[in-house]
């Protein structure tokens, strides 16, 4: 496969791993922000290729994991209503709300459909004019433009039976929040490549300079990740802190202006609650007032205000990189993908699920 095989080539991987070993003189802790990177690291065993004293911390970049319980419960309440077709990306279906997940509601007869693109919800809305269609918009800046275009298009087409439950989130505020948190000892970051393909990386310059931490915008294949780690370590060893772009084949400094303009039109920046992490200022995107008529939260009265999270789930500490999943006493015992206590165990990009799938020896 072109554009994939080159980035999975064993000899390139070995060269990079050797270069990293030769470069590193002391312990460093690097956080990969994106869940897609965490998944790759565990699947390919990239952590096994690093010197022992380089530690990878798995960050909060799994949109499924950080979607707050309140939003999931609202989604469940909307999906349960008769006459509603609830559209969602596949991996949201297993995320537990307070009492159940979308799969259980679907099993009891609710019309819940997995879509690959928010635009599929438009098609479903056109084909079912007697039904109320709700699209559950979750994800970082990577998926937000797709929701934005669906919202914009539905307004153009005057489709009145489609509304949106929007819980999109932004990466830079959470990186900033992690750096401000005194508990943290992260030396550098691998920035989320796909988010930057939309947003560019100008937003990271002030964060990098204020906190004096290297940020390397990084891709998702083994060679990308190792190269990102190499660049980050090189900065650390040389006592530099800059925003560097490893993922040049996809990311340009200013990102995708068309997508950004569309997002600015459709969304407004709001404070947002992150599951396990709490409220982070300016970290969320909600529908702007102009699109109130398409806001599912205004259209449906779910009676749900704020739902508090279970106490025994340590996903907050995991999302901040304070502990690794196997260090949680519930990991693999009371908390499994079938009975998840928190969302980090559900999504394939969640750190707990990735450890459960790639590292757990089922019989000790």
């Amino acid at each position: 496969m072109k554009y994939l095989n080159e980035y999975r080539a064993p000899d390139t991987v070995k060269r990079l791993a050797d270069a990293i070993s030769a470069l590193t003189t002391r312990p460093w802790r690097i956080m990969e922000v994106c869940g897609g990177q965490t998944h790759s690291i565990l699947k390919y065993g990239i952590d096994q290729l690093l010197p022992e004293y380089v530690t990878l911390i798995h960050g909060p970049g799994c949109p499924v994991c950080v979607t707050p319980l309140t939003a999931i419960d609202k989604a469940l309440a909307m999906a349960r209503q008769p006459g509603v077709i609830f559209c969602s990306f596949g991996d949201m279906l297993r995320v537990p709300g307070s009492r159940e997940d979308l799969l259980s509601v679907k099993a009891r007869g609710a019309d819940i459909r997995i879509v690959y693109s928010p635009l599929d919800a438009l098609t479903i809305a056109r084909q079912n004019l007697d039904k109320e269609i709700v699209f559950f918009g979750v994800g970082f800046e990577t998926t937000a433009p797709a929701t934005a275009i669906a919202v914009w298009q539905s307004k153009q087409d005057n489709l009145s039976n489609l509304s949106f439950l929007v819980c999109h989130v932004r990466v830079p505020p959470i990186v900033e929040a992690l750096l401000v948190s005194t508990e943290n000892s992260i030396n550098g970051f691998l920035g989320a490549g796909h988010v930057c393909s939309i947003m560019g990386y100008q937003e990271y310059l002030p964060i990098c300079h204020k906190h004096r931490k290297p940020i390397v915008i990084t891709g998702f294949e083994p060679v990308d990740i190792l190269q990102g780690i190499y660049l980050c370590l090189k900065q650390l060893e040389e006592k530099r802190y800059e925003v560097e772009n490893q993922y040049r084949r996809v990311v340009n400094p200013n990102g995708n202006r068309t997508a950004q303009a569309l997002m600015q039109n459709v969304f407004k920046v709001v404070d947002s609650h992150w599951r396990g992490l709490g409220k982070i200022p300016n970290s969320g995107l909600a529908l702007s007032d102009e699109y109130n008529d398409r806001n599912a939260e205004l259209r449906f009265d779910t009676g749900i205000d704020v739902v508090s999270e279970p106490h025994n789930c340590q996903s907050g500490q995991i999302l901040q990189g304070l502990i690794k999943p196997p260090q949680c006493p519930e990991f693999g015992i009371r908390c499994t993908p079938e009975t998840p206590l928190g969302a980090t165990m559900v999504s394939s990009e969640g750190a707990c699920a990735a450890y459960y799938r790639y590292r757990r020896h089922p019989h000790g």
Partner: protein
Amino acid sequence: MAEINLNCPLPLPYEQIVMAHGGGGRLMQQLLDRLIQPVFDNPILAQKQDSAVITVNSAKLAFTTDSYVIKPLFFPGGDIGKLAVCGTLNDLAMSGAKPLYLSCSLIIEEGFPLADLKRILQSMQQSAQKAGVKIVTGDTKVVEQGKGDGLYINTAGIGIIESALAISPQKIHSGDSIIINGDIARHGIAIMLERESMQFDHHITSDCSDLSGIVHGLLDSGVQAHCMRDLTRGGLASVLLELASAADCHLEIDETAVPIHEAVSSACEILGFDPLYVANEGCFVLFVPEHQTYQALEILRLDPLGQQAAVIGKVIRPKPGGMVTVKTSFGTSRVLNLLSGEQLPRIC
């Protein structure tokens, strides 16, 4: 790390059936172990083979059944009829049995076009004829419109085991080579692309086929197969995990040795699927003593269904409860685990 014991009398995590209970993953295993097995409890069922092996007078018979539920009914490389015959033939073949007779039960939705039904039945007859088996009994039910996906088919099959070889997971032994006959994940991806109307430059067809011929070629040539298992909905990973657990062995797979068509692999990338967990309908894994590895490979490669046969791994050592590890092309390794249920397309 604490032991996860699937036999523990924990309640099932859901109060009603969800789709994942049929997905070939951990939830389905729980349903079998915690509900179905305990209710029907008997020593033949407890062997957990694809076919039950029963002795009637001195004849050793293999007996199996399977239901076929697939959307779309016609797909590149086959249809529900071919699938219903081949799937049951394959279950029989994996126990070393020569398939003899099949049954055919149809559950048809009101309004289903007769022309489609005829096409499907002819496809069943064709596949049966090719394998030298007869469809000798059956049943027909019609359900109201909206109560079925057009057509469901159940087939049961009976075959005779002539070889003295006892083929079962318990025969799997340290040092055995693990061989696969062909490239993986084609059926699941062909269906998914057809369902989502996705177009690829390369046309991907299902691998749906009857494996009884290739299996008998192998057994007749004197290969002492320790165990065979056809890959179905949970893919290669789920079968290996099931066998490792039944055999109490640690299996190691070399990821780069597993044959996969480039177009299938690309489609998996786009959809966010791991090909090791994608459905197959014409692939099987074979455990043979190490010294017979190349003999088995040569024989498999003589058959059109075995052109891409490859050694994909070996049995490392006994390990209570079983374990499967995957060696990557970088020399690192990871543990394989059953997925909870079906793979769900990822957000990004």
